[in-house]
Every structure is written in C-alpha cells, then in structure tokens.
C-alpha cells in the first residue's frame, strides 16, 4: 500500500528542510572564505597548532567569546553555543565556521547536526 498524500508531502518537506539547512551551512562557509580572501592576509598553510589561552587573547572579541564557549562545552552545535552566548544561531554558525577555517576548531557531522570541537 502506498503512503497517504499527507505523509508523502511531510516527508518531502522534511527532505527539503534538511537540504536547505545543509545549503545554508555551505553558504556560510562560502561567505567566510570570501571574507578571508578579501583580507588577503590569511595564509591557509600557516594553520596554528593549538587554541591555547594566548591564542584566545589574540582573537577578536566576537570570535573569542565563541571559542571560549566551545572550550567549555567540549563538543557542541551552533545552537548549544548560541544558548550560552545569547547570540543568534546563524551568527554563531558563521563564527564557528570561521574558527574552523582558521584551523582552531574541528567540525564533524553526526546525522543532521554539525558538531564543533577543539582537537586536544
């Protein structure tokens, strides 16, 4: 027996939502890469080896807040970080992806969620 039309459209909508979320995250990464390229002083080869406290001190204020929160939470999603910093999830997602690009954080996907962490 086939699925009811309501169920099929619910599944379809869920799939569309999932794709949009993935697309949104990719766009955020893309925007960050463009921002970094515009600055021209970002050298990908010179990845720092550790997110230690001296590095935390040298980060701009908005990124430091995100980085310290990740240090405290361990593995966390942008939503978890946003809950602590009281900033919007999309803002934290952007900052977290920027920290990944800078080589300070790692990112892994578990199911539909993206987790960020410091590799110790």
């Amino acid at each position, binding site marked *: 027996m086939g699925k009811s039309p309501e169920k099929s459209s619910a599944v379809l909508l869920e799939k569309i939502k999932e794709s949009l979320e993935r697309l949104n995250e990719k766009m955020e990464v893309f925007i960050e890469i463009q921002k970094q390229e515009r600055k021209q002083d970002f050298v990908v080869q010179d990845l720092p*080896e*550790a*997110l*230690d*406290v*001296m*590095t*935390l*001190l040298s980060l701009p*204020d908005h990124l*430091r*807040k995100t980085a*310290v929160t990740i*240090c*405290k939470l361990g593995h966390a999603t942008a939503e978890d970080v946003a809950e602590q910093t009281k900033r919007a999830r999309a803002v934290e997602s952007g900052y977290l992806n920027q920290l990944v690009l800078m080589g300070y954080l790692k990112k892994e996907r578990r199911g539909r969620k993206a987790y960020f962490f*410091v590799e*110790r």
Partner: protein
Amino acid sequence: MGKILAVHSYKGGTGKTLLTVNLAAAYANKGKKVCVLDLDFRAPSLQSIFRQEASEYWLNDYLNGACEINKVLFDYTPQCNCNGTMLVGLANPTTEALRDMSAKDRKWEMRALGRLLSLKNTLLNDMELDYLLFDTSPGLQYSSINAIVSADVVLVVSTIDASDVAGTRRMTHELYDLFEKKTGILMNKVPIEFLSSPADRADVHSRFQNTHTLPVLMVIPCFCDVLRAGGSKIFARDEPSHPFTRHVDEIAAKVEKF
C-alpha cells in the same frame, strides 16, 4: 552549583596565597565544602602552609593526564578544625618539576586548560563542592590565564605600590575584560595609618575605586601579626577574632553574593 574562584595578581608578594588559604578556611568554617589548588607551578607554596612536603601525585600529574584529580587531593578537614570539608591539591615543588613545567609547549597548555575546565564537572558537580579556589602565578603566565579562563570569579590582589596598581589596571583591560569574568579587586597590605577612622577608610576606598574600573571589594590593612606569623598560621582557623580574619570573612560573604 558551586563556584570556582581564581586568586590572581600582577606582581608577586601581594598576599594571594595567604588570602586564598584563609578564604578557603573561612568557607570551611561556615560548613562549606571547599578545595584549594596550588596552580603556581613556578613557585609552589601550599605544601609549606599545609605542611605536606611529600605526595604520591601532584597537580602536575593531573595536568599531564597521568592521574585523576582524586589521586591528587588530600583531606585537610581534620587539621582545619572546621564544620565543613577542606581538600587541598599541591603543585610539585621540586626543581625538576619546576623545570619540566616551564618547558611545556602550547599544545600542552591547551590540554591543561581542558583538564582545568573539566574540574567544574568532577569537583563541583560530582563531588558537590561549594567552592574551588585556585592560587595562581602572578602576571601573564599560561597557568594563571588557564586558571582565569576556568574560573567563575577572579579576585585580583594588589598592594598600594604604584607599579602594582598600574599593572592591575593594565590586566583589567588586557585580560579580565577580554574573558568577561566577574572580577573584584582586593587592596592588601594598606598601611594602617591610612585607615585609622571610618571616614579615612571610606576616603581610601573611594580613592582606590576611582583608580580601578573593577569593583574594589575590600581594603585590607597591613597587619604586623600576619607578617610576623610568616605563613605559619591560618588566621581564619587559628585566630577567629583577629581583625584580619574578620576582613577575610567579609570578603567571603561578598564573594558569595558576587
């Protein structure tokens, strides 16, 4: 949920260790469960105060990942003569350990930060401690900044020395503010003649407060008795009615509400 307090200063010799130990004793007297950790790996001193020169495991071992924190802590409650609980974790004072700690790289310091941050879970959540106090190295040392990042409240001890005051102001903008920590200043060893009347005390307090953007929690007079004891006494335990102990009790009460 308990609180982590880091006691820090710009310069050495401001009275950090003495205030940390006495604050811990004051909380233990009130029936609280406290733990004091010596994070001054360049010049460990709690082993002299608690007269515990040998230990199987030190905080160095915990930060190295060689043992868990419960192996490092010893129970000082029987000697502290208090209603609560007092645990102590010591830094290894041997020259070899000091040399080893000064040669750590950034990656190690990053892992050490992770180990310190996880104490919130093990000591405050699992062991249900009320206060965890960090005694730190003065100035901008890795170990002290790690302690500050891990703490909920930072107490900065300063004397009236001009370079100390200027250094504390600098650290306010370049360290404490950047990590958005609740921070309070304790002005210590203030000459007693500056504080002879309530009006003088209020005047001195407001002068210090005008110098600092952070709240000045307490102005502590320089007590000859404390200097004379040379660290051999824990005033909050041995001299409960001494004016120094009263100042420490007042700081403890202010920090509770901070």
